[in-house]
Each structure stands twice: as C-alpha cells, then as structure tokens.
C-alpha cells in the first residue's frame, strides 16, 4: 500500500529538522507519509531584516526591510495572514502571487520573490510566507495628506498618465485591480508610480452571450466604489477601476477623498449629488441591477461634476477628463486608452517629471504612518485646502513626524 508504511512501535522524539506543524499532526503520524526534506526553492525570510511596519494590506501587514547581503537593498515585505485555516493557503494570497507573477510593468509594483520563515518548534513548524516587493518610498494618500507636498499641474498630469498606463496594462492582461485608492498607488522617490495591493484583484473574461459573470460586488474601498457595484452588479469589468481612477484624479486637487460615505446607501447618495441621479435615461439598463429598487436613489439630481470640481481643478481639460471618468454608466466611462488620449495629457503644461519635486522631501510618506485625514473638504469647497496652505494651519504645516527613518 502506498499509504500505510509502517506501524510505529516505540514512542519517538520529534525530529525538529523536519518542518511540520505539531499542532496539526504529531510526528509519528506524519512519518507515515512524509519524508524529511529540505526546501530548495523559497528563500528564507531571514535574508531580510525588518526595519519598520509601513502598512496593512488586504491580507496582511507590510514591513519595510533591508537585504542582509551586500546590496543592502530596501524591500517591502507583505506577510500572508493565515486566518482561515479551513481554506488552506488563502485564495487572496494565491491570486496576488499568480497575478503579480504575470504582470511585469514599470507602473505595476514588482514582486521580487516569495520568502518563508524557517519552520521551527517556535512557530509550531509552520512557515510564514512573505511576498517581497521593490521598496517604494511613498504612497499617494501619504503624499496628499502632507500639505508640504505640492503638485504642479504638469506633475499631476504625470501621476495620472502613469496611473492610466498601469491600468491600461493590467486591463489588457485581463486583470481587474478592484481596490483602486490613493493608498494603493505607490510612488518611488524618482517619481515612478506603481499600482500596488493586488489582494482583491482577479482575472476577468468578457461575458459570453447569455452567460453573465458572477463576480462578488463586495470589493473596492467604499469611497472609491463605483455606482454599479453599489447597485449590486456582478457582471462588471474594467470600468470599476476607471471610476477609482477618477476619484483619485480629483483627489490630486482636493487632497482628500471626494466622496466619503459612511454606508453604501450614503455613498450612493453622495454619488448622485455629484454625478446626477441614476436613471435609465443617463444609464440604460441600470433599472435591471439587483439593488436598483432596494436602495434609496435620489431623484431629480443634476450632474454637477464640472461645476463642483472646477474651484479646485481650474484646468478645463482636467475637469473634462474627470467628467468622463466619473460617468455613472460604466459603458460610457472612459477606458484607460481613451483617457490617455485625452487633451489633458497633450496640452501645455505637458506632463512633467516628479523627481525634482520629490527630492525636496527626504522622508517616506505612507498613509499608514500619516495622522488621520480630516474628512469632508469638498463640502466646504469655498476655501481651497491643501493646495495653498495658509499659515493659520500650523498643525498641518508641520507635516507629520518621521517614523520610518
């Protein structure tokens, strides 16, 4: 028999070299089917030295770490949380690994390798897995929350151009990000933007006729969630990420998320107040979405995207592109390619490099390390926060304390 090998007569001491989980199996049980062997592939995580915790991802903590070898290179290490023992290795982690192994692009975060801790008695012979990434100095939410960081129009264009380039690439590879938000947009000190956190990402296919996709609609951080998801759509696609791109673009000027609903219902109301009522007139087919009759949808709201964002954005091309990204009807929303061809990117001032602006800031800026942002800037949009900080805001002017270096 392949399975029953030998009966164990005498009690044995567990051999600690064998990496195993003593909580799940005792050694004797295990000897029946597993032989002691070394793992030649995944490197040990001890080749890196943790420096600081810099964030909390969808499926685990993120650390800044430094390679112990001669390169002394900085990396970001994302710990794989093993919450749900029943599911085995978490499917979210499997997705992130396989998707990041597939995606290699200047504007997508680079996965260097997967590491694991050595299995010892101390961790009950169960390794912890880490995803190891190239280190990026900042995230966009962290940069935007620091009033000392000022983006010129050309720099904003460069940020958005890179973000859309990244989205164009992942969408061409049939991947949805599904968690677009400023905190998931990383920026290196050289000004290169990287889309990060693919913990909610998944591959998509174009629905075949008569056979709609059934993806979960419980994705995307609420403030960046598009109306079709809030209305229960399960057959969605790349436009869900484009809505997030629109929210992030507006945030480049408003400096805080433009619609901060506390509940899904409230978020829908905020969207209607900005983008107009969700009606079959502007959005054919909206009436057949699952929650169309279950959610309260404000009627008779006029679309005020340009009107309300103009005080911040000023640039008419910018306002127009925002209008095209924040379309209620996903079919009318610009895709990444069309957005990249918008005049916004091809008129003066042209997109310009971020490196020199970022060079003035020598500390890392991550949302995780920043003080809580003050909500609701958009509601009083008569004074312009952030863009031109007034001396009367000393608490904000000081930025925030350095916890990384």
């Amino acid at each position: 028999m392949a399975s029953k090998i030998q009966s164990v007569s005498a009690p044995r001491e567990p051999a600690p070299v064998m990496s195993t989980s003593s909580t799940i199996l005792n050694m004797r049980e295990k000897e029946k089917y597993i032989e002691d062997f070394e793992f030649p592939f995944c490197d040990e995580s001890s080749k890196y030295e943790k420096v600081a915790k810099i964030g909390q991802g969808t499926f685990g903590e993120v650390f800044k770490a430094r390679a112990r070898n001669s390169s002394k290179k900085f990396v970001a290490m994302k710990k794989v949380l093993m919450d749900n023992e029943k599911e085995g290795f978490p499917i979210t982690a499997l997705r992130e690994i396989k998707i990041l192994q597939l995606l290699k692009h200047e504007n997508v975060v680079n996965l260097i390798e997967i590491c694991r801790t050595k299995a010892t008695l101390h961790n009950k012979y169960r390794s912890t897995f880490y995803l190891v990434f190239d280190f990026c100095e900042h995230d966009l939410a962290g940069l935007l929350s620091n009033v000392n960081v000022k983006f010129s129009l050309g720099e904003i264009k460069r940020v958005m151009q890179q973000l859309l380039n990244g989205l164009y690439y992942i969408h061409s590879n049939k991947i949805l990000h599904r968690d677009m938000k400023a905190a998931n947009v990383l920026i290196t000190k050289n000004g290169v933007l990287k889309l990060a956190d693919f913990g909610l990402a998944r591959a998509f296919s174009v629905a075949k006729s008569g056979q709609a996709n059934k993806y979960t609609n419980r994705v995307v951080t609420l403030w960046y969630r598009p109306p079709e998801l809030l209305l229960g759509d399960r057959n969605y696609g790349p436009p869900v990420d484009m809505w997030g791109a629109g929210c992030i673009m507006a945030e480049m000027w408003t400096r805080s998320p433009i619609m901060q609903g506390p509940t899904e219902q409230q978020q829908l109301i905020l969207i209607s107040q900005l983008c107009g009522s969700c009606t079959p007139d502007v959005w054919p087919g909206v009436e057949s979405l699952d929650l169309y009759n279950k959610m309260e949808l404000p009627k008779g709201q006029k679309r005020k995207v340009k009107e309300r964002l103009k005080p911040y954005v000023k640039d008419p091309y910018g306002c127009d592109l925002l209008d095209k990204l924040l379309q209620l009807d996903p079919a009318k929303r610009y895709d990444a390619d069309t957005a990249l061809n918008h005049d916004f990117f091809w008129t003066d001032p042209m997109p310009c490099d971020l490196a020199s602006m970022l060079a003035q800031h020598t500390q890392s800026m991550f949302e995780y390390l920043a003080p809580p942002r003050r909500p609701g800037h958009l509601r009083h949009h008569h004074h312009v926060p952030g863009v031109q900080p007034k001396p009367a805001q000393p608490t904000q002017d000081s930025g925030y304390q350095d916890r990384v270096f």
Partner: protein
Amino acid sequence: MAGNFWQSSHHQQWILDKQDLFRDRQHDLAKLTEEEYQKVFNFFASIIQVLGEQLKLRQQVIATATVYFKRFYARNSLKCIDPLLLAPTCVFLASKVEEFGVISNSRLITTCQTVIKNKFSYAYGQQEFPYRTNHILECEFYLLENLDCCLIVYQPYRPLLLFVQDIHTQIQDDQILTYAWRIVNDSLRTDVSLLYPPYQIAISALHIACVMLGKENLKPWFAELNVDMDKIQEIVRTIINLYEMWKSYDEKKEIQGLLGKIPKPSPAPQR
C-alpha cells in the same frame, strides 16, 4: 487572464531538460524501472482525473493539478510525500488557482474516500483513504514551496482551439478537435508537460489526430507552421509510446505490485 507564456515562470523555470529530469529521478529509478515509474504516474494521473470529474471540475483545473503533481516529483523522490496524499492536494490547490472556487474540505475528503473505494479498489483493496483535511492543508504548504509558488500553468487546450480555428478556414471537420483534445488529455500521462511548451504539445496532438483520421490534405497546413518539427516528432513519439504501452498493460493486475515497490519514507531513527 491572458499573460505572456514566454515571460512566464512556466517557460522560464518549468520547461525542464530531459537529462536533468532523468538524473533527478535516479533515486526512484533505483527501485522502479522507467516503465514502472511511468505506470505509477499513469495511475496517479487517473486518480486526479477521476477526483476532478467527481468534483465536477473543468478539464483545465484537472490538467493543472496533474502538472503540479508531476512538477513536485520532478524534483523530489516519491518517498518525500505519499502520492496518494499529494494527488488530492494538487486538486485542492489547482481549483483555487484556476478560480474554480474553494472545494469544501469535507467534500474533498468524502470524494477521495468514495473514489478510492469504488474506482480504485483494485489498487487499494479494502484499504480506506487514510488522510484527513489537516493532512491536505499541511501538504499544500510543501507543494507551494516546492513549486516555488509558480502557480500559473499554461495548458495546450487554448492553443489547440486556436489552431483548430485556423484549420477550419481550410477544412470543416469537428472530429479533429475531439480527437486532438483527447490526445492532449492523454499527454498528461507522459512527461511532455514538463519538457515542452504547450503550443508544441497542441500541434503534436493535432498531428496524431490527423494521422488517425487519415487527413492527408492537412499536410500543407503543417508544412507552413513555423515550428521545430523535431520537437513535434519527439512529443508524438512519446505519446505513441504511451499508447503502445497501454496495449499490453493491465493496470488492474499490476498496480498493487508497483505501489508496493515505490520508495517510501524511512522510519525516523530511534533515539
């Protein structure tokens, strides 16, 4: 998910060299002849196939599970993990990776028990499936580490469909696809998925199908392909050898003996 095969871990890390593969198997080949070794893998490919069918998985998931299984033993001896445990673990992991959804633990174990009892009693006799969920979850870790977390496996099915589409512009024949598809399934019983890129396996399956069906008129189509025909011939020969082996092989009679011969974990030293 499309992706680019040429940049994938499948192409860069997991198209193995025949000599290397043979060398890494030396430990097992000390106990089994090459043919016996192949018969053992043929058997476990059947277990994975039947498990997958019982769990109503798509063939793509089954194929990925089979390749995981082969990749693990390409670099490890059969004694490292009991193949009867690794087989369902591969099915479990593949169904997650291929977005089939997570198979519930109890369903997986129950299916293993029924399948071993009802379909493979000729190999295991009255022996019940000895593993539980905790064994599979544990084994998943070993599997992931040994795959070096290379999860995406490109299968010959998609290129096959593309080639058949192209052929259809010249000849309308549904039989070719049916035959070639089955030959691709059969190819999982050989080492070709470890040695050749999937598009070459697809072309080879088409080639065999055309010979079986006597489709002489497709010769120009093959001639126009810009592909290394030596490789195609190697794959064809490997698959034909499998069919030759099947002719004279009665698994029901031989497999118990073979399973008895495979290397097993040695008991830990007494202290």
